[in-house]
C-alpha cells in the first residue's frame, strides 16, 4: 500500500479526497496506456497499439464519470490530492511491455493492472474510518473485479498462441 501512495493518510481520507484519488488513479492508467500505444506504434506493433488505445478509451470514460461525480458533490473545491502522490495504482508497470508483444500479452498486462487496482481499493476500504469513503472504495474495488472478469473473457476468446519466438525481445529497427 505505502509504495503506491505518498503523503496520503488513507485511514483518515475525506470523501472529496477519496474521489479525487479515484479520478487520478484512472488518469494515471489512461496516460500509461497512451504511452504504451505510442511505444507500440513506434515499434511497428499495430495490434498491441490498438488494444492499448482501447484500454485508454475505457480508462478515460471512467475518469470522466468519476470527475463528474466529484463535481456534483464538491463543485470546484480545490484538490489536495495530487498526481505526484500516487504510483502505478492501476497503471500497468513500465516493464510489462515489449516491442514484439502479442495482444494476449497486452491483455495479460492489463489483467495484472486491474488486479493491482482491485488489491489497492480492497486494502484502502479496510483502512478508512468514514463510512461514505469506505462505500466509495468498496464500489471501486467491485468495478475492478468486473474489469478483471472482462479482460479474462477477452483472453479466453483469443486463439491459442504458438511457442514464444526467441526474438520476442528484440527491437524492430526504426
Amino acid at each position, binding site marked *: 500500500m505505502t*509504495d503506491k501512495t505518498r503523503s496520503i493518510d488513507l485511514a483518515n481520507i475525506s470523501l472529496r479526497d477519496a474521489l479525487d484519488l479515484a479520478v487520478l488513479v484512472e488518469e494515471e492508467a489512461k496516460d500509461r496506456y497512451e504511452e504504451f500505444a*505510442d*511505444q507500440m506504434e513506434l515499434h511497428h506493433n499495430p495490434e498491441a497499439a490498438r488494444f492499448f488505445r482501447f484500454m485508454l478509451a475505457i480508462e478515460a470514460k471512467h475518469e470522466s464519470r468519476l470527475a463528474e461525480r466529484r463535481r456534483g458533490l464538491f463543485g470546484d473545491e480545490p484538490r489536495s490530492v495530487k498526481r505526484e502522490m500516487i504510483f502505478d495504482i492501476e497503471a500497468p508497470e*513500465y516493464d510489462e*511491455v515489449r516491442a514484439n508483444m502479442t495482444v494476449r500479452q497486452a491483455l495479460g498486462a492489463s489483467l495484472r493492472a486491474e488486479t493491482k487496482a482491485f488489491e489497492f481499493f480492497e486494502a484502502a476500504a479496510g483502512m478508512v474510518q468514514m463510512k461514505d469513503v469506505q462505500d466509495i472504495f468498496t464500489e471501486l474495488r467491485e468495478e475492478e473485479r468486473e474489469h478483471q472478469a472482462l479482460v479474462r473473457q477477452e483472453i479466453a476468446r483469443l486463439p491459442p498462441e504458438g511457442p514464444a519466438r526467441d526474438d520476442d525481445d528484440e527491437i524492430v529497427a526504426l
Partner: protein
Amino acid sequence: MTTTNAPLPTYQAKDYKSELKPIWCPGCGDFGVVQAIYRALAAIGRPPHEIAFVSGIGCSSRIPGYTTAYGFNSVHGRALPIAQGIKVASPELLVLVAGGDGDGFSIGGGHVAHAVRRNTDITYIVMDNQIYGLTKGQLSPTSPKGLHTVTSEYGSLEEAVNPLLYVLAYGANFVAQGTPADMAGLAEVIEAAIRFPGFSFVNVQSPCVTFGEDDQQVKNHRATMQSLAKLGHDPTDRLAAMGLAQKYGKELHTGVFYKNPDPPPTMNALIKERQQVLSEKAPPRSRIFDRFLQT
C-alpha cells in the same frame, strides 16, 4: 506599480514532460526513471526555465529532451564538465546531469572524481544498466565479471567498476541508489539529492530490456531490493555506507547511502567568497584600465 495577491504558480509532474515521445525500447527501465525525475522536480517546484539538464551520449542521455527544462545532449562522457560550467556561470539555475554507466565511468570516468572534489551544486543521475545498449550490447564498465556479450564471447575477464564505492571513496557528500521498480522511493532520493547543497550522486539500476541479463530486470529488482532505511542504516556514517556499497552487484540496496550532515561549502560559495575578498582590494571599475596604462 501594481501588486497582486495571486498565489505563486505551482508545478505538477506533467509540466516537466516535453512533447517529445521517448524512443527507448518498450519495457526499458529509463521510462520509470524519467517519471521519477518529473515527480521529484514537481516536489522541488522550480519552473522549467530555471532548470538546466545536461547529458552525454547513450540511451539514457536522451532524457533532457523528454523534459521541458533547458537541455544539452552533449558530448560522450563530457556532461559533468559542461554542467559544472553552467552552474558556475549561472548559480541561480538548478543543474541536473544524466547519463549511463559507460558515459559516466568509462568515457567520462576521469571527470567524476573532479566533479566530486569541486563540490559544485549539481545532481548527477547515472542510469546504470551494466551494458552498452545503444550500440547493441557490448561490455560496459559496470558489466559483471563473466558476462557474455558481443565483445566478450567467452565471458568478461574484468571486475566491474563499483559506482557507489567510487564516488564515496572520492569524498562525495550525497550518495544514493534507486530502481524504477520502486518509483516512489526513486523520486524521493532524486528529490533529496537535488535539495542537497553540493554535488549529489544517484545511481539508478535501470535495466536494459533488450541486451540486459534476465536476473537484472525490473521484475527481479522488485523481488530482491532492500530499503536502506528499513535495514536501519545510518546515512550519516560514511564508513557504514562504504561497507554497504561493497555489496554492489550482489545485493540491491535502495535509498540514501551517505548524506553529510555538515555539508562543506559548494564551489559557488567558495567563488563568491573569493570574489568578495578580492573585490575589496580591487580598483574601482572606472579605473580598471589604469593598470594597463601605467606600464
